[in-house]
């Protein structure tokens, strides 16, 4: 991904009932770039998986969390800033293993970089997936 991008930041209450809103919002955003419907579905699933981990974690003490989206002409990235303790426990248990497999498989970019906090980055290139 390269070139100019539009950046959108959403600040979401750390409550499970807002995950359906996140899925709806991210679907709208990435549809705008031109991803086909199957890739939109994949991105929606991945973003929701990460938000689920944040919402269900005791590590995130704030009542809200931010998701930062970058919309390029040729792709999409999302950034989730989380505490170290969440990054360490992100993929524990059966459902954690499933989440890791899903996120890794459905994205072109997936990384966790830690300093004081950790940033989970996901990305998807437009590639051949063009709607219409």
């Amino acid at each position, binding site marked *: 991904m390269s070139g100019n991008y539009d950046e959108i930041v959403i600040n979401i209450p750390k409550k499970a009932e807002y995950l359906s809103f996140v899925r709806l919002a991210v679907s709208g955003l990435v549809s705008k770039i031109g991803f086909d419907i199957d890739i939109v579905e994949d991105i929606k699933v991945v973003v929701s998986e990460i938000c689920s981990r944040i919402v269900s974690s005791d590590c995130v003490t704030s009542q809200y969390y931010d998701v930062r989206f970058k919309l390029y002409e040729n792709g999409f990235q999302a950034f989730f800033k989380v505490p170290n303790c969440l990054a360490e426990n992100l993929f524990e248990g059966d459902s954690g*293993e499933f989440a890791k497999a899903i996120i890794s498989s459905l994205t072109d970019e997936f990384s966790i970089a830690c300093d004081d906090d950790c940033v989970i980055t996901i990305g998807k290139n437009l590639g051949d997936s063009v709607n219409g």
Partner: protein
Amino acid sequence: MFEITVDNRSDNGKIRIILSGEIDIATAPEFKNRLYEIIGDGTKDIELVCDGLSYIDSTGLGILVGALKRVKSHQNNVYIYQLRENIKKLFRITGLDKVFILEEAV
């Protein structure tokens, strides 16, 4: 929102459950309670009819695995019917398509 109902018309000795809607972390606790209540100790085979299921996340998949373990302990199985393609994809990615018995037609 999701719905879970038992189809009592089935007389094949298995428990047939109809799932629809979205199963995510918001609905997972209720889904788990209802599913485990229906399957009990796992003494019968389970049929999950999922043509109305539009979304399930890793939490929901984990609950299904828990249900499978429960019925497997009594040498029974979980049959999953009519998964939508987007959800079938998640089963393939996680390897669960090899763990559950996936069928097209009920």
